């Protein structure tokens, strides 16, 4: 009986299909990616059942870290330039054009006004290191207090862009008096509506909110 000849098959696989899939996924991720914004400090936000998404644009972010330092930032690059012009005029900081540009491309500010000039004068690469030891923007419970520099920032930011939404991103271990300073400052400028950034947590079953969510889903 003759041997059955098995045709020898090549071990090579056509990679074209796999390559196609890889690049398809790559394209998807490249388009879907929004890079994590540069954050001065690591903040662990508390969880809530609220599921309102953060607005995409025109956000003023007030970050409070566990030690109670306050960082101020706005997202729109165009407004950052006019904001620093405004602040420079208002507080007579005497910033140079280069320092203003450094602010416009930077991320957030955690320095009092008297240290702002030297902070902005440092090259962008070293700014991040400085931010780690930044004292934070000084704040107070009253807007009339001249030491309440946060009030000046908020005032100027609202002057340059009145549509700004204010978001407070505080660490869960930040003590209440620190948060209160920010809230009182906002109240002082007649801002009574703002957002607190939280993580999402599941609605506990058997509560009024749960029934509401269920009822809403049925409709």
């Amino acid at each position, binding site marked *: 009986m003759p041997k059955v000849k098995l045709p020898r098959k*090549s071990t*090579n696989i*056509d*990679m*074209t299909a*796999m*390559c196609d899939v*890889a*690049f398809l*996924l*790559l394209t998807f*991720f*490249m388009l*879907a*990616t*929004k*890079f*994590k914004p540069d954050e001065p400090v690591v903040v662990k*936000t*508390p*969880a*809530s*059942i*609220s*599921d*309102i*998404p*953060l607005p995409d644009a025109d956000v003023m972010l007030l970050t*409070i870290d566990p030690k109670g330092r306050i960082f101020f930032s706005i997202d729109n690059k165009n407004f950052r330039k006019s904001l620093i012009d405004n602040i420079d005029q208002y507080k007579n900081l005497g910033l140079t054009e280069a320092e203003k540009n450094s602010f416009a491309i930077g991320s957030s500010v955690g320095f009092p006004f008297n240290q702002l000039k030297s902070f902005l004068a440092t090259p962008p690469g070293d700014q991040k290191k400085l931010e780690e030891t930044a004292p934070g923007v000084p704040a107070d419970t009253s807007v009339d207090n001249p030491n309440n520099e946060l009030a000046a920032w908020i005032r100027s930011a609202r002057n340059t862009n009145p549509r700004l939404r204010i*978001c407070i*991103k*505080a*660490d*869960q*271990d*930040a*003590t*209440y*008096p620190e*948060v*209160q300073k920010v*809230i009182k400052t*906002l*109240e002082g400028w007649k801002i*009574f*509506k*703002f*957002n*607190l*950034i*939280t*993580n*999402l947590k599941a*609605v*506990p079953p058997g*509560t*009024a*909110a*749960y029934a*509401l969510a269920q009822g809403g889903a049925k409709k």
Partner: protein
Amino acid sequence: MAEMDTSSSGGHKKGPGVKKSKKLSTRIDLTPMCDLGFLLITFFMYTTTMAKPKTMEINMPYKDPNIKEQDQTKIKESEALTILLSKNHRVYYYEGIGSDPNKPPDVKVTYFKPSGGIRDEIIAKEQKVAQLRQSGQLLPKDEMTVLIKPDTNSTYDDLVNILDEMSISDVKTYAIVDITQVDQDFIQKTEQANGGK
């Protein structure tokens, strides 16, 4: 790994002196390209933030210095629940607003818990107010009002938790109020009564 050049094997022999033109395969090994593709995918998957942060909207009561005191709506003692946030995530609460110094309220302590915590107390108070409304002791428009008073040693986590409890239990009217000395004394007294913890 490259593909075998099979297309030229069938060609006939050329005479001497004729240069053999080697036919090259048009196939390219795609493995490195595929590797690169996946490497980049890994990078983008790692850096991407798919979950957008969620926010909680909060409306503080409008403070207008022009409003005179007699025009302000007063909270009724029977519809109010005062919640004091204190250290170590403790929650003190009492019914009413504790304005009468002769009748100190019964301050109790609890924690944030899925059951048997502050949530049950809020629900119980809500039912009590609903009963009072039915029996006519409260007007139909009166609603339970929760006063949240965070102490100086409470954390932001507590504040968000209690605001969250408000939305969980669907409490319509609540306010964040500054803590008073009276309330701080209540906390101290309760602490002493519970063994000075």
